[in-house]
């Protein structure tokens, strides 16, 4: 399976990444693309910027582990994951997940699985700047529930509380 994992400061072009992954092939029946964007509002205040800190080395390895898990679970023909770090402004893209497969169910499921795990397991932390100052974004319990549904584990649920 073709897997591309990139962490980068610069912006990316989702359409170009789809073409890179799926262009020139005729075995693919479904392409699911998810792009996460930086919203222009945080807790009711206009957002000036968002800064993403990450753990170099571990972030790539952790994403790769989940791409391998997705590949074992669904018959995929390719995956691309791009996650940005550094300072982003509203409207800019943060993350891209592309999953391609023969059938749409596998591509949808794999893309959602990867996003749920990126939210809770990939070592990235968001800090937002508003007129009220800067603050670290708090992890959402709902994101843990989303990730847990793929592999229910009592210990992870306990850790989230």
């Amino acid at each position: 399976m073709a897997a591309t994992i990139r962490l980068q400061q610069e912006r990316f072009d989702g359409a170009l990444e789809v073409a890179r992954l799926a262009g020139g092939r005729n075995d693919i029946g479904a392409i699911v693309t998810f792009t996460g964007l930086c919203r222009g509002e945080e807790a009711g205040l206009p957002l000036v910027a968002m800064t993403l800190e990450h753990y170099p080395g571990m972030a790539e390895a952790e994403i790769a582990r989940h791409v391998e898990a997705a590949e074992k679970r669904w018959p995929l023909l390719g995956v691309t994951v791009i996650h940005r770090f550094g300072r982003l402004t509203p409207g800019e893209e943060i993350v891209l997940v592309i999953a391609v497969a023969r059938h749409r169910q596998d591509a949808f499921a794999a893309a959602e699985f990867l996003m749920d795990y990126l939210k809770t397991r990939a070592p990235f932390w968001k800090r937002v700047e508003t007129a009220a100052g800067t603050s670290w974004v708090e992890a959402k319990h709902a994101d843990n529930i989303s990730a847990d549904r793929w592999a229910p584990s009592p210990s992870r649920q306990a850790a989230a509380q």
Partner: protein
Amino acid sequence: MKLRYFAWVRERIGKPEEEIELPAGITTIADLMHWLSQRGEEYAHAFENPKIIRAALDRMHVKAETAIGGAREIAFFPPMTGG
């Protein structure tokens, strides 16, 4: 052994990483957090609620009860907010 800190754990401690000699009697991640929390006000602040601090041992997520063994790098950080 190298310790690395991220996000508000890094900010509270005031440095991104440091080298330490693991003291005798410290065998788990939880032991290490407790020992660190007694190293000064900044550490006490960072580890004031150890239940919410996540840890990675040689770049793999681990639980607090995990044995440190011969780890080369241990990282402490808040719950992750990527994606």
